[in-house]
């Protein structure tokens, strides 16, 4: 069965390591924070200028001057630091973030990513997405494998305007975990109960399927 949004977040959380500085995009990536393993600690960076983002505030704690990149009210952890936007993106663009998780419309076999603009629809802007994909050493893209109408989002070549070129190596979809190697998607893991055939059918870009494709380890 395809992974739920929560299960996708659970799988991504397995990539976290103790001491990681992590930037989580809006949507499924945000959920990853709920599944940090008990025995490790990570620190969340919010690109508007907060390193060490905490939980949402209580009613009493709400502070208009303390928000995250999604413009939501948040709190700061003990040991947090706050910086201006240039210093915040220096962290991101300088490659100091250990893991960045973000959504996408499309990814292709050359590591290109499209996530911000659908021609014909109103363009609202890229925000920090282009900086995040260009700067993070280690990016995981997470999205459904195919659109609701069944069209693959893993392409030979992105059709939408790019957010970044040649910068993606790792993708988690609701069906599979894949890595990009030598201009092809390599199928590394299947969602529990999802067949290789289904993944093959829903992957438009070149796909390398190893002899053995293990199932993901998703806790019940």
């Amino acid at each position, binding site marked *: 069965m395809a992974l739920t949004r929560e299960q996708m977040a659970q799988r991504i959380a397995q990539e976290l390591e103790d001491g990681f500085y992590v930037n989580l995009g809006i949507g499924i990536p945000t959920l990853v924070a709920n599944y940090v393993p008990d025995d490790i600690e990570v620190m969340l960076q*919010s690109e508007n200028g907060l390193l060490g983002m905490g939980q*949402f505030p209580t009613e009493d704690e*709400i502070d208009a001057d303390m928000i995250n990149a999604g413009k939501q009210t948040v709190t700061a952890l003990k040991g947090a630091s706050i910086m*201006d*936007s240039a210093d915040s993106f220096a962290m991101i663009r300088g490659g100091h973030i250990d893991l960045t998780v973000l959504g996408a419309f499309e990814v292709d076999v050359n590591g290109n990513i499209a996530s911000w603009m659908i021609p014909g629809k109103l363009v*609202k*802007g*890229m925000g920090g997405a282009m900086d995040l994909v260009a700067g993070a050493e280690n990016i995981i893209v997470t999205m459904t494998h195919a659109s609701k109408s069944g069209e693959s989002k893993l392409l030979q070549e992105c059709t939408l305007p790019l957010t*970044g070129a040649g910068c993606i190596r790792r993708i988690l979809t609701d069906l599979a975990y894949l890595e990009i190697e030598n201009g092809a998607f390599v199928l590394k893991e299947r969602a529990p109960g999802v067949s290789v055939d289904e993944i093959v059918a829903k992957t438009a870009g070149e796909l390398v399927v190893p002899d053995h494709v293990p199932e993901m380890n998703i806790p019940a």
Partner: protein
Amino acid sequence: MSGFDKRVSSYEEALQGLEDGMTLLAGGFGLCGIPENLITEIKRKGTRDLTVVSNNCGVDGFGLGLLLEDRQIRKMIASYVGENALFEKQLLNGDLEVELTPQGNLAERLRAGGAGIPAFFTATGYGTPVAEGKEVRDFNGRPHILEPAITGDFAIVKGWKADTYGNVIYRHTARNFNPLAAMAAKVTVVEVEEIVEPGMLDPDAIHTPGIYVNRLICGTFEKRIEQRTVRS
């Protein structure tokens, strides 16, 4: 040091010299840390054909959104816009021009403008529509694009505390683009919640040194919240 007392006595005086067609740099991220009262004064003043550099353009009826109502903005340089319907309408009508720039590039371009760096190379935006017409060069085996600095005629900035010399401290994530806008304009106007005497702020903790501040005024702020999220 009378020459260093940056205080002005009214918002009208604070924005004296802001004229039609000028480039205005505005601090703030979403509605957080925006110079509310300076924006209101620009609306009252009716300055038109402004090029506004700001990460966002407010919402309907608040923040920079107020300047859309009378079409005071001709061009917007921003990373994310369209949190309000009026913006969308003016954009589709062709009444408003938008230059989208990645958030990190926007921040760095403002800093560069303030720091006397006319252009810098960055990987951000390579291979995307942002790179169109820009020079591409490889460094460390990766392609980068050349981005120009941004400077402005006026900057409107929201601080927390300042001393009379214009040394400013920001509060929490309301800092965002404010110190960068402050660096990059010919005339920088800062509104704050409290003005104190010189010597009351720790010299080691100043975010914007007074050298960047031309005019200073104390105001009261609504601080509207865009996404009020709480935990149970």
